[in-house]
């Protein structure tokens, strides 16, 4: 019967969903925040960051890529899953070079905001301090690879919306890294433009408009006035280029 209510339980509460929704989408629609970094409502779920991990009938899975199924028992906010999520975010902080005090995306950074949401007060693990040179070759765009968390949002935006394929990931495991589509490897030799969708989807501070850092005062940045959960639940998706929610 098509009008039958379909529900699964999320931490013991019934959550209604419609056919085709993932667990994450259904949870957000019902007003329950599921932390995430690589999820973006305008793109197909990707399942790479795993911050949205839940347990479905006792098995861990990324909630952004798992279809909601009637009758399933989903755990989200158990202590072990909260610890797991926090550890994943700490890994991201320690794998890159994230210096929030001097980062121009501070206050507009989804990684930082999700970190606050999850109670991350330190990296905990020994930082790797990778050596990733800044690509400043483009006249209007700075590529700060030290902050990349490999969410592939820019890859998806450039391929699916801009139809340019400027960005891609290369390498495997710990050596995986963001590359640009130019033989020289320089951003200046790609056809990226500041109007591209890929310019506005980065959840951290990798793809930056040059010469605009710190133009938004403290108090007016996205996460000065909203938490990551408020933004996600409002249906918006993290920071915009202007710092507006």
């Amino acid at each position, binding site marked *: 019967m098509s009008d039958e209510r379909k529900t699964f339980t999320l931490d013991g509460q019934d959550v209604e969903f419609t056919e085709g929704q993932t667990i994450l989408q259904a949870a957000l629609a019902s007003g329950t925040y599921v932390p995430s970094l690589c999820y973006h409502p305008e793109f197909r779920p990707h399942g790479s960051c795993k911050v949205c991990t839940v347990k479905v009938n006792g098995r861990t899975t990324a909630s952004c890529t798992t279809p909601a199924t009637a009758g399933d028992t989903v755990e989200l906010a158990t202590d072990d899953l909260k610890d797991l999520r926090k550890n994943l975010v700490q890994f991201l902080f320690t794998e890159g070079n994230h210096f929030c005090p001097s980062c121009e995306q501070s206050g507009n950074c989804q990684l930082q905001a999700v970190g606050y949401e999850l109670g991350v007060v330190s990296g905990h693990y020994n930082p790797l301090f990778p050596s990733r*040179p800044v690509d*400043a070759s483009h006249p209007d765009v700075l590529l700060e690879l030290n902050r990349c968390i490999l969410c592939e949002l820019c890859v998806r935006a450039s391929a699916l919306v801009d139809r340019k394929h400027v960005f891609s990931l290369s390498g495997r495991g710990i050596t995986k890294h963001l590359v640009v589509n130019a033989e020289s490897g320089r951003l200046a030799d790609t056809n990226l433009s500041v109007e591209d969708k890929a310019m506005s989807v980065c959840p951290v501070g990798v793809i930056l408009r040059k010469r605009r*850092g*710190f*133009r938004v005062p*403290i108090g007016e940045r996205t996460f000065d006035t909203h938490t990551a959960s408020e933004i996600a639940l409002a249906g918006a998706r993290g920071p915009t280029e202007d710092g507006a929610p």
Partner: protein
Amino acid sequence: MVSDLEKAKDPQKLRRIAIDPVSRVEGHGKVTILLDDQHRVHQVRLHIVEFRGFERFIQGRPYWEVPVMVQRLCGICPVSHHLAASKALDHVVGAARVPDTADRVRRLMHYGQILQSHALHFYHLSSPDLLFGFGSDPEQRNIVGVLAAYPDIARQGVMLRKFGQEAIRITAGKRVHGTGSVPGGVNKAVSAADRDELARALPQVLDWAQQGVRLVAELHLANRRAYDEFGTVSSSLMSLVGRDGKLDLYDGVLRARDADGTLIFDGVEPAEYHTQLRENVRSWSYMKFPFIQSRGADEGWYKVGPLARVQNCDAIGTPLAEAARQELLALAPGRLLHAPLMFHWARMIELLHAAEMIGLLLDDPALQSGTLTASGPRATSGVGIIEAPRGTLIHHYEVDSQDLVTMCNLIVSTTHNNQAMNEAIRQVARQHLDGHEPTEGLLNHIEVAIRAFDPCLSCATHALGKMPLAVELVAPDGRVVQRLVRDAESVG
């Protein structure tokens, strides 16, 4: 000239006393004293034991990040670095003159910083020495002791600092490490509500500031001879002065005077600082030793900071502070004052001046609305000089065509005073330690002299290149078998 107490002739045979760390100053430093069996002093050095290296790791960063990143040098005077960097980068973005609103907002931030830092230094760090005595019980000789014995004075210090911090928060977004100033201007004007909040508090602040000047004057005059002589060594003085010759802590040109008041240079544009100043390094300190080039490395050291500024300028443009300045100058008509303890008096005059300046800025309509940033033809380098609470602060950057910093030179207030502090503590060692068994109280005299300069040691250590290092292989008989030296000049 460089003191004979910088290097002992035969250090191996001497007893070493270390004051480590020097307390009630910002940052970490230590003093070492070498004494013989009769407690005669043979060597005194102020060492800076930490290494920061901002000059190096700012290289390769985008220029707009610099004002926010370099202010992390310090938690006490970050505004000074924030603004000096912004002023340097104003030139890079072609905005040598920023819009009026940006100028007023930055000045309010800066005078808030001067006020809070001077209050912190005098009331929290130095007043215990002056109120209780240099050799008094160390259990009382601190801000908690001041709170117990002189609650009104301590409270005024705390409240003055709070007012200055509020001026910073209103303009920079945070009390410490804000982001208000950007290359070419600022990112916001001051709201009417914030302006009114400061204006309401200002009359009380002006009253407390005047009480502060009276307090330091009374303390000094009550012990005048001892205070005048304590650690006093004559030297040249240097500071920024306004283009009209008046005191201007935010912008102007460089002026230096000889110990007797004769001008050494005047009207030197910030971008030309390198034509007058040079920096020397010594193997035993991470802090450089700047000097006036025309006087040479040994003779060319100088003092910066409040005492230099109030004597270097032709006048102070606000009436209460100018009257207080005239009282100070009347102590030695026609001569320059050099006593380290006079710094406190000059500092409180500047605190009063900062409060008066904040009042003028709050009445300026440009503070609340107008264009925030300017830009023009790009340049590849910029120099920004500001008078930080502790003295002249120089930021110099070169930026490439991709917007990345390729060179950074910071000459920080405390660095200018390096030789002056060393000379002062050597003089105090001669005056008070020589021939006496060192006690905690006597050793505190050394610290009192250092504190007078209000050093910020964390700001001051940015030697470019690798750390200077000497390794010696010594035989049991004391003979040096092998010696390897890596100095700051020869590497990196």
